[in-house]
């Protein structure tokens, strides 16, 4: 269907791009989008919509308990004010994770795009993405072995300074952020790299030969050009981190209480899907609001 539509356009005349745009293009657009969005709708969006409907129910609609519709689950932050603290913690963890990923990931992408070429670059890129091919749970458990008292970190330290105490920081927020940064850094490196790799050497050489200092090149050329990558990377990091529950639970010990773990508990322990779902959708709304504000600021910044 898609190729037909495109071919027809082509057959109507070997004309310039202007002509193509004027032809009704909705057929091709639909053909490009339909398979993906049909798939997404069936497999994820409809199930999530079901959950959304559940979030207005008085109880999980799987038992025999009578179901009434209610908004009470969306009032949870008012009724259980301690959730506000937990929500704030999640946002702070998400913010630091995203910021650290952005800084280290961007620099890694710059290094990848500027300091390497050809096969070495491809190999390095693949090596950066490969740790992802191990299961996340296994990676997080490995971090506990590194970070715990008398774990690998302490052992390495004691090889150098035999008398040093323990620098274990397992079961702290730092451990959670470390685990999350490790889990999401490759996303940021990849998206920034994709944005940076198209920069023409000539631009930077020209800038340098005109006397631009490195920070001018960084702030005036590299960061603006990497902006789409930084934004995608931030989305791919911040959004899932807010709802993550494995890393906080395993690396955070008793401080690992986040919105993700609260939601998980509602599903696994409390069997209160409506509340769990309501909390997730509230979280989604907050995330969207943050990005809306953020993109508004960016747009104004770009216009200025």
């Amino acid at each position: 269907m898609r190729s037909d539509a495109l071919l027809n356009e082509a057959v109507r005349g070997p004309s310039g791009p202007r002509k193509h745009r004027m032809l009704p293009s909705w057929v091709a657009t639909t053909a490009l989008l339909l398979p993906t969005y049909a798939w997404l709708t069936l497999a994820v969006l409809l199930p999530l919509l079901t959950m959304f409907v559940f979030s207005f129910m008085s109880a999980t609609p799987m038992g025999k308990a009578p179901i009434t519709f209610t908004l009470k689950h969306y009032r949870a932050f008012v009724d259980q004010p301690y959730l506000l603290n937990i929500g704030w913690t999640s946002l702070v963890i998400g913010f630091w994770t995203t910021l650290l990923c952005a800084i280290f990931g961007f620099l890694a992408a710059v290094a990848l795009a500027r300091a390497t070429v050809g096969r070495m670059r491809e190999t390095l890129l693949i090596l950066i993405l490969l740790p992802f091919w191990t299961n996340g749970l296994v990676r997080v458990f490995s971090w506990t072995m590194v970070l715990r008292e008398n774990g690998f970190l302490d052992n390495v330290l004691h090889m150098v300074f035999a008398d040093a105490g323990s620098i274990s920081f397992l079961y702290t927020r730092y451990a959670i952020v470390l685990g999350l940064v490790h889990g999401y850094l490759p996303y940021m490196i990849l998206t920034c790299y994709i944005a940076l790799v198209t920069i023409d050497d000539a631009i930077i050489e020209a800038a340098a030969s005109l006397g631009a200092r490195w920070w001018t090149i960084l702030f005036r050329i590299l960061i603006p050009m990497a902006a789409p990558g930084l934004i995608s990377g931030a989305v791919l990091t911040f959004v899932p981190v807010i709802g993550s529950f494995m890393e906080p639970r395993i690396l955070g010990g008793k401080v690992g209480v986040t919105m993700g773990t609260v939601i998980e508990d509602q599903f696994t322990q409390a069997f209160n899907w409506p509340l769990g779902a309501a909390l997730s959708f509230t979280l989604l709304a907050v995330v969207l609001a943050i990005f809306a504000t953020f993109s508004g600021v960016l747009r104004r910044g770009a216009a200025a």
Partner: protein
Amino acid sequence: MNNITRRNTLQLISAGLIAGAGYSMLPRKAAAAGSITVLNWQGYGTDEAWSIKAFQESTGIEVVHDYYSSEAEMLTKLRTNPGAYDLVVLNAARCAQAMAEDLIAPIDYSKVPNISSVAENLRSNENFNKDGVGYAVPWVWGLTALAMREGLPKADSYAVLGDAAYKGRVALQDDAVGVIAAAALLTGQDMNNPKDLDLVKETLKGFKPNVKLLWSTEDQWNKSFAAKEFDVAMYWSGGSVRSKRVSKLPVDFVVPKEGGIGWVDGLGVPASAPNMEGALAFANWMIDPKFYVEWATKAGAPASSNVAAMESLPADDLSRQIHKPEYIATMSIMSALPDDRREAFNNLWQEVKAFYAE
């Protein structure tokens, strides 16, 4: 079953999509006469390889497993997979819920001859019975109480969880029902229905300086204990036997004066089970002394509901020493919670956890 009707359109879309993806929809696993599917926690008795092999050799029935990682999920799987399971392991506290929803069928005890020596107290547990009809074969029972590092003075009360001597050396179970039960027992209340929840909350909050971590799996317990991250913890009786025997950890299991938190797991047959006969044969196998002794001594198990099975254990067996027969009569057993109380328990525990995390 539910208040949302199936949509034929969706079926069509999905069928089309699946055909497009190149996979025809397979019908549910046919109930071959020679197979049963068991739904259980992983590594919890039913899936011991030697036992499955022996069972197949003696009956010709093959045992397949599916697992759950929370009891809520077990119920969800039962509801959304009619016809998929033949036998399910379920806690007494959850059994009532499954019974109420007609997810499990009454048991024909004549097919389970070993039931004759099962402790009467467990068999008649109100959570396993409805209108005088039994819906589950009591399988194993155990206690949640305290475990301490060997060599430490044995605590006689749950108060040790808040004892200043163990600052930062305590692990609690990350389970609302479990921790609330401990705090309720400590404050002299009914663990299944504490009247003064505020007192329970304050008691739990008082443990804060001591709490190092909240564990949710036996694995996590073992690894953290092995790494010497805590000295005192709430723990399962069967778990402590396994930790000591299999993992060689220096653990003492202690039942304080307030009593242990008792639980019973039963074997239920889903109402939709394709192979009830086979399921009951396997249930009988599971409470057979021969299976139990091997399980308990090789791997480490909770106590069998079958008194004869407990008596076949060597007298010095760890499991036998920990699970004293008189407990069956005296311990408080976790029972079914009404929805509002369960919700109150969970909200309380969330609040306490948030307080710990501050």
